[in-house]
């Protein structure tokens, strides 16, 4: 009795030989078997017409699959190339030179220029926001009844307020 796990009964309708499974044959076709298995199955193929037919079927399927994949990939490449070509043609159709470059994305450029101009105007007329109070009070000496140190919100202007006695 054959105890080899890869030699099992196969319920496939297209395979009459029960010595090798379709999975095993598929691995043979894909060159995934170990050298011993490959040698054994190769010698079996010379005697078994059924397994030879399964191998032929798998090889054909593999060829078809590869052809399909290659064709699909080729179509994708062709499609990308066509898009590139169309883009290139459109680029060529655009006005060239300084005027052409200026009119390209004109609205975006105008918006950018306007934003930059607005920022410049704000910087010039409003100035940078003040950092820290205008004055730091280090010491105070007075006979006033009360003293307050105030800092305005906007310009952080320091005010010292004292009440004369």
């Amino acid at each position, binding site marked *: 009795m054959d105890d080899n796990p890869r030699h099992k009964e196969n319920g496939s309708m297209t395979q009459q030989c029960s010595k090798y499974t379709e999975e095993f044959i598929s691995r043979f076709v894909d060159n995934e078997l170990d050298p011993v298995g490959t040698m054994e199955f190769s010698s079996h193929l010379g005697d078994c017409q059924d397994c030879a037919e399964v191998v032929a079927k798998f090889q054909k399927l593999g060829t078809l699959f590869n052809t399909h994949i290659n064709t699909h990939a080729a179509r994708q490449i062709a499609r990308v190339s066509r898009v590139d070509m169309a883009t290139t043609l459109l680029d060529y159709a655009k006005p060239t030179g300084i005027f052409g470059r200026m009119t390209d994305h004109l609205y975006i450029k105008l918006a950018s220029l306007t934003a930059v101009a607005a920022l410049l105007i704000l910087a010039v007329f409003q100035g940078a926001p003040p950092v820290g109070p*205008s*004055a730091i009070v*280090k*010491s*105070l000496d007075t006979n*006033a009844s009360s003293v307050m140190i105030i800092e305005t919100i906007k310009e952080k*202007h*320091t005010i*010292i*307020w004292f009440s004369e006695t």
Partner: protein
Amino acid sequence: MGKFQKMMVFWLGIICLLPHPLLAKTVYSTQVKVIHATEGSSHIDPGIKAIVQEIESVFKYTDYRLIKNKQMALKKNQTGTINLPGNRTLALTPVDMADNRITYQIRIEKNQAPVFQTRVLLKNHNSITIGGPQYNRGVLLLNVKGDVR
């Protein structure tokens, strides 16, 4: 001495003769605006509009009049004085300049007696306002601005 060395000595001499900003004495341009603030009519003198716009939210006063505007070019540790209404005197002394802040010693005297004294680190090109001395149904606001170039 070679030609190159002579040229080097010549140019070094020229550079040494040029006025160097680090060697120049620091001048503390100090401006004092004495403002009389009262309640009553709504008036702001044109020369103090910017200051008043900044400080008016703090005060109850509506009438701001510039009664004195003095510009002084002080050296370090040199005291500048201003006579204020009500027999008062304001004395200002710039004592140091560090981290873009001028250290001022400020003193107010009344009848030749000190009533208020403070030491402040004033940001360069900025001002501080000292208020409180009573005068003519209002108060005096002393706006001190310091500038070092």
